[in-house]
Structure formats: C-alpha cells, structure tokens
C-alpha cells in the first residue's frame, strides 16, 4: 500500500508554488525578473522562494510523538494507572487498615479479586494505595530535583568562570557518592511519609539535571541568536528570560519524565529494603519486600500483580520520555 504524500513531512516543499494560498503570486520586489508572459503568471513566484507548508514546531513535535505507537501506549498506560490509583479507591473498597487473621493469605476469588496478604488486607485496594504513593513520590521528587537542578545548572552556566568551576566540582563530588546508598542512609531517619521520601529522593537527584541544564546554557550562550540579541542592546535579564530559558526548557521537560521513572524505582527499592512508607500507607515496593518468601510459599498473587503495576508504570514513563526527546529532536533538527 502506498501512503499519500504527507504534507507535513520533512521533505515536503510546496509542490506548485504558484498555488500556495499562503503566499499567492507576487512580483519580485525589484520588478521584472519574470516576464509578463510567464505561464505561471506575471512576476512568477516570489524572489525569495515560497514558504514551505510546515506546521509550527510544537505541532511537529506532537505529530512525531503521536506517530510513535509505543509512546502513545505509554501515555495510555499512565492515564489508566492514574485513574486506577486515584479514582479506583472511590469505586472499590477493600480493607487496608484493620488486621484480620481470618482473611489472611487468601487466594484471588470471592470478595478479593487479587486475594489478601498476611495481614488480611485486600491486595487490590493496597495496590491502589501503592499507586498513589508511586505517582505522588515520583512527581514530587522529580519536581524538587528539576527545580534545584535547573536553578543550579543555569546559575553555573550563566555566571561561568571561577564560580562555575567550583559549583561543578561540587557536583562531581556529590555524583561520586552512590545515590541509592546515601538515600538509604538518610531514609533510616527520614522516611515513612510521602513528603519525607520525596524530599530525600529529590534532594539527592538534582545533579544530573544540573549538569544537563548547565551544558545547554553554555551551548546556547554561544549561539548566534544570543549574540544577535546582545548586538541589539538586549540586557542580560532579557537574554536569559527571552532566549536562554525558553530554549533550555526542552531539556528540562524531557528530564522530568525520566526523573519520575527513576524516583518511582528508587521508592520501590526503599520499600523492598524495608525503609518505605509507614502503616497504614504503603508503596508497591513495600508490598514486594517479602516477594522471595511469597513465591516460595506459592502466594503468586502477592508478587506478580504488584510487580506488573510497577514495571508498567515505570516503563510507560520511560517510553513517554524517550518519545518526547525524539519529538523535540525532530523539532530542533530544522534549526
């Protein structure tokens, strides 16, 4: 099957310039390059050539994103789990607070679609709770990290010189401290609530975004359009606000999705090692802490449904982030 030519593809150029409704036919500004009897009309096409029929950058990016089936799937998975976690508890009620040995370790069936755990808590309801924790911690931690990282990186990149060197050496040092270990150590004191865990994760994951933003600011600073703004007399503030920040944003946006995925994974690790949320709250990682024992006892329902949720959500975030990066690349490819 041959597809019809896509008018917004990169290669597309106005095929019949004289028919372009956007430009119409206009004489050369100097007058008379095209003789009046040119079959395309007096004056012919525009001296500068006609404009190409390409949609705006963001629409181009959106199109590229939507054409990536995996990314659309990822987005759908994220929407589903958001509804599952935040709307689910209003539609499905299960015991997650009162320990009930009589209901303990039930296989799926009856009133418990995904069975119960050793406390007699309903597994499905707990999964919804865990989902809330995953999204909340993921987003909070990512936002904290991106705000610190962007500010830090932007300042280092803009100020430059000695201070930049100093700030980046500090990042080098902090990056050499293994992330998970320092987070675990701090978690021995500060964990248990969503806010605390988000803070701990966020405060220790701004380093990579800081480096990326600094690099971006440094390259942008050398770009000709920034020089042009300076030549016009643009103030430092104006150059930062109008040129540097908007252009550095794409790096930041892509990074947020990856940070969310990483924070969710880190939350799972904390939970699995027993440093997760405190009762009655729970996270998917908390629920998987004894997974090895569960499978050996044949309690598969306590492992695979939760694990699948975790993998799917993290996977979806990574897919969306990857597609966003590619989409923004497409937009910038034409620079």
């Amino acid at each position, binding site marked *: 099957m041959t597809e019809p030519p896509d008018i917004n593809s990169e290669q597309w150029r106005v095929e019949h310039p004289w028919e372009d409704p956007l430009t119409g036919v206009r004489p050369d500004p*100097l007058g008379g390059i095209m003789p009046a009897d040119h079959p395309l009309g007096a004056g012919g096409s525009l001296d500068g050539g006609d404009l190409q029929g390409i949609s705006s*950058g963001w629409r181009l990016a959106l199109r590229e994103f939507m054409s990536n089936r995996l990314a659309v799937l990822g987005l759908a998975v994220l929407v589903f789990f958001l509804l599952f976690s935040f709307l689910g508890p209003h539609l499905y009620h299960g015991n997650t607070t009162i320990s009930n040995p009589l209901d303990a370790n039930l296989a799926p069936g009856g009133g418990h679609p995904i069975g119960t755990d050793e406390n007699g808590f309903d597994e499905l309801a707990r999964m919804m709770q865990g989902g809330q924790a995953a999204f909340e911690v993921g987003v909070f931690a990512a936002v904290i990290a991106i705000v610190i990282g962007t500010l830090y990186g932007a300042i280092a990149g803009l100020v430059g010189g000695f201070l930049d060197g100093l700030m980046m050496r500090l990042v080098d040092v902090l990056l050499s401290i293994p992330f998970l270990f320092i987070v675990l150590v701090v978690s021995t004191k500060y964990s248990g609530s969503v806010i605390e865990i988000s803070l701990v994760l966020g405060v220790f994951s701004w380093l990579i975004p800081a480096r990326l933003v600094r690099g971006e600011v440094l390259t942008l600073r050398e*770009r000709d359009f920034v*020089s042009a703004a300076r*030549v016009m*007399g643009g103030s430092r503030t104006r150059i930062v606000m109008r040129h540097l920040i908007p*252009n550095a944003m794409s790096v930041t946006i892509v990074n947020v999705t990856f940070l969310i995925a990483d924070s969710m994974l880190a939350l799972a690790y904390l939970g699995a090692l027993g440093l997760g949320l405190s009762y009655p709250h729970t996270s998917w990682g908390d629920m998987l802490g004894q997974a090895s024992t569960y499978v050996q006892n044949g309690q598969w329902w306590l492992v695979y449904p939760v694990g699948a949720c975790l993998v799917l959500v993290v996977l979806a975030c990574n897919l969306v982030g990857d597609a966003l990066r590619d989409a923004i690349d497409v937009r910038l490819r034409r*620079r």
Partner: protein
Amino acid sequence: MTAALEISNLSTEIKLSRSTVHAVGNVGLTINAGETLGLVGESGSGKSMLGLSVLGLLPNGGHITGGSIKIEGQELVGLPEKELRKLRGDRVAMIFQDSLSSLNPTKTIGQQVAEPVRLHRDVTQREAMERVLEVLDLVGLPKPKERLADFPHQLSGGLRQRVMIAIALACDPRVLLADEPTTALDVTIQAQILRLLDDLEQRLGMATLLVTHDMGVVAGRANRINVMYAGRIVESAPTELLFSSMRHPYTQALLGSIPRLEQDNTKRLLSIPGLPPDLTNPPTGCRFAARCRFATEQCLQQEPPLTGDAQHAFACWNPVDGPAELTESVAHATRAPVQAARAGLGDSPSITISGPGVTQNGIKPLLEIVNVVREYPITAGFLRRQVNSVKAVSDVTLTIHSGESFGLVGESGCGKTSLGKLIVGIEKPDSGHIRLAGEDVFSYRGTKLRKARRDLQMMFQDPFGSLDPRMRVNAILQEPLQIQNIGSQRERDEKVRGILDDVGLPAAALERYPHEFSGGQRQRVALARALMLEPKVMVADEPVSALDVSIRSQVLNLMKRLQIERDMASVVISHDLAVVKYLADRIGVMYLGKLVELGSGDDIYARPAHPYTQALIKTIPVPDPAVEKAKTEVGIRGELPSPIDPPSGCRFRTRCPLAQQICSEVEPPLRRFGGEHLAACHFPLQTPEPDAESSLTTAG
C-alpha cells in the same frame, strides 16, 4: 574502445519513512580513460547520489530502479554484492568531501592506505607498505615514512585530503569518483589539491568524475560538463562549448549568478527566483519551469527530452543561445551621499590618524578601528592557567566612512570574523579602540551603551543558528525595536511589514518559525532583523557562504540593493574575494590576524601590491575555461601557520616566494601605493609612493 565509465538511463530512488525521493532520473554519461567529466549541480540535485550509485553505496533505503552502469564494458547494475566489492577500491575508487570525518580517527594513516592494497592485491604486509609509501609520495605527502604512524587528526586539512586521495589511488583505479573533493578546503589549499588531481589524472590515465557545485572548479580541468538539476541532466557539452554557448536557461542562469572578479559590480547578478522542486513529488513537465524566465505552457505540461547531438545535448523546449549579458543596473538611484563623502576626501588617505576621530582634512570618519588587538587565551590544567593565546586580530587599524561598503577577505583563521565581532561589540578588544563617529562607544555602560548599539548591527553566517528557534518571525523582527524602545506598537508592526517586503518575503512569513524556512529565506529574515534598527554600520559575516549558488545571487542582489537604497555603511566579511568585490567599494585583505593590504576593488584585483593578495587572486577558481587552463602555477605553497605561534616579522614570509632575511626580522609597515591603496610588504609588487613610510606608523 570501450569507455571507462558508461552510465545510461540510470534512475535511483531513496525510500524514506513517509515518502520516496526520486534522486536520479534517466541519467546517462560516458567518460573515457584519461578524461575528466564535470558533474555540476546544487545541493539536492542528485549529483552525489549518482556517484554513490556507481559504487553501490547508496544510503539506507536507496536503490537503483533502472538503467545500466558499465565499467570498461562490465555491467554493475544487478551484480551480486560480492562481485561489486571486488571492484570497489580496485577499479573504481572514490574521494569524499570531508577528509576529517572520512578517515577513521583510531587508525593510523599507514593502516588506512594499506587496507585496499592488502584486500585487492595479493601482497605481503611488506609489499603493501612499500606500495603505501609509493602512493603517499605520489600524492605529495612530505616525508611519508614519518607520517605512517600518524593519526588523521594530527595532519592538516590539506594533507588529510592527500591521504584520502592516496587511499583511492592505492590500487590504480580505472575510474575515480571525486565528490566535492575541495569544498571543505581553503582556496589556497584547494588550488594545490586540484592541481594534484590534474597531474595524477594525466600520469595515471584514469577516468575522473568530478562532482561539484562550483563552476570554477570544473572550468579548468573537465573535458566535458554535465549540468544536473532536480535529478535530471539538463545539459551536456564539452567544457568550452558549455561556457561559451550554453543552451539551457538553468546553465545560463547558474553561470550568470556567480559574481566574478573582473565584473562591473554595479550590474545586477542574474538570479534564479524560488527554490528547487521537492524530489519526493517532482512536478510534471520541465522541473525548472517554475523558476525559468523562458517557460511556456508546454514546459509545465511536457518534460523536455535530452536532445541535440552527441557533442552538445540539452533538455529544454525554449533553449537560449549563449550566456546572458548582465545589463540591469543594481539600483536606479545613484549613491549620492557616498560619492559626496568620497569626493570630499580628495587624496587624503582615510587611514591616517592625526587626532581622535578627525582626519587631516577635517571630515569625521564614521567608524574607526585603531590598533585593535584580540587574543583568545588558551588555558590548561586544573587551575585553568593561561598557557598561550590565539592571535586572532593583531594590531589592525582601519577607517570606514558613512555610506561606504567595506569588504574583509581572508582564509579561515585570518581573524576576519573576530574583527567583525569586535566592530559590533560581541567581543572586546584586548587593546586599541573602536570609535563610532569619534566616540568610544564600547566604553559606555548601561542605557548609554544600549542606545549606542543601535547603530552597529550584524548579520551572521549560519542561517540556522542566528534565529531563535522558539520565536516567530514577527517576534524576531520586533525584538530590536522593543529593546531599543522605538515607536508605538502600530508603528513597529508597520515597520516590520515594510522591511519584510523589502527583503522579498510575504507577510505570511510573520507567523512562521525559523525552521519553516529554507536557508536563503532565513538569511533574508536575518538581514531584515539587522536592518530593523536602521544601523549606521551593518557587519555581514559570510552572508552567503552557507547558501546554494542560485540562492546566493538572490541574497547578493538583495544586499547590494539595500546597501544602496539605505544610507548605511556595511562591512562584508567573506573568504570569497569575488563576493567581497561584488559587494564592497573598498577591500581589506587579512592574513593571520594582520591587515596586509587595503584598497579599492580595482586596486586589489588589478594592481595587487602584496604577494599574498596576488596569490589569492590566482588561486580562486574562475568559471572561465580559458582563464583556468592558462593558469600554470599553484599560487601559494604550503599551509597556513598556526595563529597561536605566528611567524616573526612578516607573517606571510613562510609561504612567500619573495621572502628574504629582512622579512623574518622586521615587520613591514603599511605603505601607500597611490590614493587609498596600502599594503604591508618589504618587497611589494607595485612601486610605493615615496616617503609614505615615514607618514604612516600604524604598526606599534
């Protein structure tokens, strides 16, 4: 006799994710042993794809859809990959444009040249190395034995290109495909490499397909030229015939659009309006019709076949006869203000500085660049201490008058771009002054500086990097007015629309983002932005070097017209002397950070005083077979020394044929050669004015 390379009816397609590019359509050509065929076309014309088709090395998704390629009678189309591989590098070899990216960075020169020998010849390692030394010597690599263990990045661009040629010649190919072999090189090095290719072809008797966009490059060395446009060969003729009596309007326009050194620069260049067609969906009829002055109804309906005799074939319904005469004057208005200013100067040289901002006869120059020095520090180590510096601009002094158009020319690394940035204040001089109307504007701060910047604007080289990708054209053009706080919103809108019209873009462009424009259109937007503030001086850094030939003349004509219409001085910076001579009244030649010669276009072209200027003129390939074939010497030998550690005395002495002892000891001062013609040389080619030396002490 069978031809070394015979291509007939060849068609090539490249499948992309959403569309198919019909890159080459029904192309035929023949090259005999010992002959060179020039294949000329703009980017996207399919000329490179044709070369890659011969080797069977089309990019992903590319394949040959029909036709035949024969090497010495042997058919290549349909040949199994394994058989094709035996031919590649052996009987057919290829030279690519960029020698830095075409050589494997982690393998030594010796290994890379030996590879095809070991593969195609049944030889021992020792014999292979002997052959390597032989070809490296053949391509003129000095001391090849010592270079064998070098890595590509350790060689200069010219030497790397020689190594790539050595790889191609290692197995004595019958057919050599050279794809833009000199485009990435400086003119002086380009001349050396072209000379080498000529020489090799004669000595080795191979057939050469020289693929290029540059008519000047093929003029002197091709026996025959094929012109390609949008995947088709539109004209094919022996070189002299093509230049003297072309029949296709595209060939005519292409040749007429190239600025030439000897040309009267008040005449408008022939320009080809619009853009080449999209090859994913080529128009019916003649592919050039939409941009052709002579197109008729028939051209839109029917595609013209390649007709004519074997000697001279062309594909056109309404052929032209010979080159077009450039008759149209650039502007109807005369340059009254400029002429008045220059008339007032009399014979008093503008370069003499007898008091701040005032020349001897009391006329204030617009822009004075006084003893300006700019050196970029090179730092090393943990503490970033400065170990050395790149001497980008060394003690340059010159003066520009209002309304004047000044050109700066020189090879890459000569400091011309740095000087341009110094003029508009992107860079600050390490010492020296830049004065606008007598005032040292860059010593100002705050609002005063902002206001002063209005008069000095710049147009950048890279049409992709100079426009903020996140701003619409409207915002881009409004920005200078906002920053300078000029006019009400309505006045601004009006002004934006007016200037857009001036640069030949429709009002619809206002709502578009930069990425929606072609390179030439972007350069128009950039020009419009520079003009928004109606500057007194506009610096244009390589304004057309990123553009295709046919688009180049559009922008050149536009700049020329706007220069004249507006009472604005401009500084045009380019590596291309022809471009500079076309746009500028007065030209400065730079070499390694020094201004070596200064004079009117005619002074520089017809009466060069500095050996470097003369050599530069000699090396530029001219689109005229008679001139090119008459050239006997290479021009300049050797390579540009490093600007980190420039030669003592006269910086050109290491490459100068006239250099003597004094040149390495004493730096030559600028001397006058009549009027405003100055040059810094101990042994100038013209006779200097007497006692000019004492009156001019610009150096030091």
